[in-house]
């Protein structure tokens, strides 16, 4: 059982602002992902929760207890560091068992629990090695075993997969999610990788420049991004954002128009994800253009169309081929259209 509450937390280093007025509630057993580009404040947020950094203002509560003045070692949490933070002079077994040793768990009990944690992450046959003799993936698993060897109130993970190769990252992602469900421990996970965020999170909190941009389930954020920053950050390939103007209820663009009707007017960015855009004959398209490139992604094909001065991504059937330079029409799905204010980037509808 552990809930976390941040109340109006701020962090400044002199005139540099790291976090600005951040409030956040994390539910028991929730898998919360802090997502954002580097320098957005996500790691700072986690370090403040861990007690490795003091907030300049605001309060932190763990299980409704204010922990601002509690040192990290008394907060009863466990953390995976980006560079793993393994003790180089200790064996794998000693690394995993260190939190237990510090807490005076008797040796036989300690050894049993180390073995169990090591088994869970498939390290049982490497217990006598030192970190320097392990591969990156193995080190990462040692860090993970050190976290699960006891039952802390909170798991904190700071980009734990970022130093692994792509294939291992996918496997470890699945393992992480499985472990968290099985152990049912509240987890806060920091990443800049939107795919990791989408796949792991119960809830994603998107940060930029020290402020929360949007928070919600991966589905909600994907379906209804609150501004162009979130729209561009979540989803791969990213959402198309096409500048244009709404006049008399219709969207106008140099390469065509969409009838609408739209209940606004003025300069806008029209957003639509590539999977909702369709390639059609030039006569049937909302916008017309030429094929700029065609990339096979495996289960789909990404065709980029140059319409006026804009590039529009379209996901199509992988078996279709599209010659570069061919005239095509682009048709939008009225159900999945997003409109953003061109100046502020904020969602209109």
């Amino acid at each position, binding site marked *: 059982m552990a809930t976390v509450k941040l109340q109006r937390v701020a962090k400044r280093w002199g005139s540099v602002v790291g976090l600005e007025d951040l409030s956040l509630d994390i539910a028991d057993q929730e898998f919360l992902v802090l997502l954002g580009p580097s320098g957005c404040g996500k790691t700072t947020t986690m370090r403040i929760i*861990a007690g490795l950094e003091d907030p300049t203002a605001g309060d932190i509560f763990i299980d409704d207890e204010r922990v601002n003045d509690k040192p990290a*070692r008394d907060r009863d949490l466990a953390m995976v560091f980006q*560079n793993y933070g393994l*003790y180089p*002079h200790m064996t794998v077994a000693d690394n995993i068992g260190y*939190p237990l040793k*510090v807490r005076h768990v008797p040796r036989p009990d300690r050894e049993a629990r180390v073995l169990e944690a090591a088994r869970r992450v498939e390290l049982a046959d490497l217990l006598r090695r030192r970190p320097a003799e392990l591969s990156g993936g193995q080190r990462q698993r040692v860090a993970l075993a050190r976290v699960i060897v006891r039952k802390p109130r909170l798991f904190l993970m700071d980009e734990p997969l970022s130093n692994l190769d792509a294939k291992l990252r996918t496997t470890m992602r699945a393992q992480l999610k499985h472990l968290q469900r099985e152990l049912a421990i509240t987890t806060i996970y920091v990443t800049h990788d939107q795919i990791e965020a989408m796949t792991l999170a119960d809830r994603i909190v998107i940060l930029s420049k020290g402020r929360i941009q949007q928070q919600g389930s991966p589905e909600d954020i994907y379906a209804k991004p609150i501004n162009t920053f979130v729209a561009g950050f979540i989803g791969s390939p990213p959402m198309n954002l096409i500048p244009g103007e709404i006049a008399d209820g219709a969207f106008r663009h140099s390469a065509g128009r969409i009838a609408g009707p739209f209940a606004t007017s003025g300069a806008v960015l029209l957003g639509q994800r590539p999977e909702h855009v369709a390639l059609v004959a030039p006569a049937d398209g909302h916008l017309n253009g030429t094929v700029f490139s065609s990339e096979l992604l495996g289960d789909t094909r990404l065709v980029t169309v140059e319409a006026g001065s804009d590039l529009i991504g379209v996901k199509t059937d992988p078996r279709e081929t599209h010659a570069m330079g061919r005239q095509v029409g682009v048709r939008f799905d009225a159900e999945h259209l997003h409109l953003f204010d061109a100046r502020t980037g904020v969602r209109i509808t």
Partner: protein
Amino acid sequence: MSRRTDKSLRAVLVVLQALLAIVVLLPFFWMVSVSLKPATEPFAIPARLWPEHPTFGNYLTAFRPEFQTYFINSTVVSLTTVVIAVTLGLLAAYCFTRFQMWLLTVLMTLVLLAQMFPASAIIIPIYKLMKGANLLNTYASLIIAYVTVTLPIAIWMLRAFLARLPVTLEEAAAIDGAGPLRAFFEIIVPLCRPGILATAVFVLIVTWQEFLFALSFTSTRDMRTLPVGMNDFIGQYGIRYGELMASSVLISLPVVLIFFLLQRQFVAGLTAGAVKG
């Protein structure tokens, strides 16, 4: 073409290295050679590189009962100095690398400044202090003086080491539940072992061979250290080179032995401290 210049360049370098080695090693060779010569030979003309009739007589004379007293004195003073200087140095260096305060920057600069005064400049004030504290002719006077001289260098050497240890390790220890002291002794100290050894050997070499303080602060035979003890062979009417050199060899041996035993760690320590990783 370029390969040939490479080769000739390497040949030149080898010759230069050999010359340098001769320049550095010749005095040591001469020391050993003279220590094996009978009393009449050191001044023989033409001089011989190696004695005509090598003898261990000088060693027997050098290894007299006083030598053992001097040896014990040197050992006590040097080892105590090493322990104190390295312990204080490690604690100070830790503070200097882990806490950021303007006061620490000032202190660190002062430490560097303190290192710049030659021993002969500070020996009289220290002598007066020792006299005032009634410490003259005690182990304490030498130990205090030696710690004063070696501590700044110890701090600087260890600081280079500690600066390379990622702070993440201490943060991980804190998350794992360890207090700062525990993290220091269980994480920092073991990881600093090469640096600690290198610093210890360095302090040992400096104190083991120190002459000026030892001569000034001790007045009785039973308090003298080895380098001062060698003075016995320099008399009013002549210098007994054979015995002097034999003593030199005997005094050098322990340090040379320790150096070779710890060589790997020591050299690794020096480079690790020098090259910022």
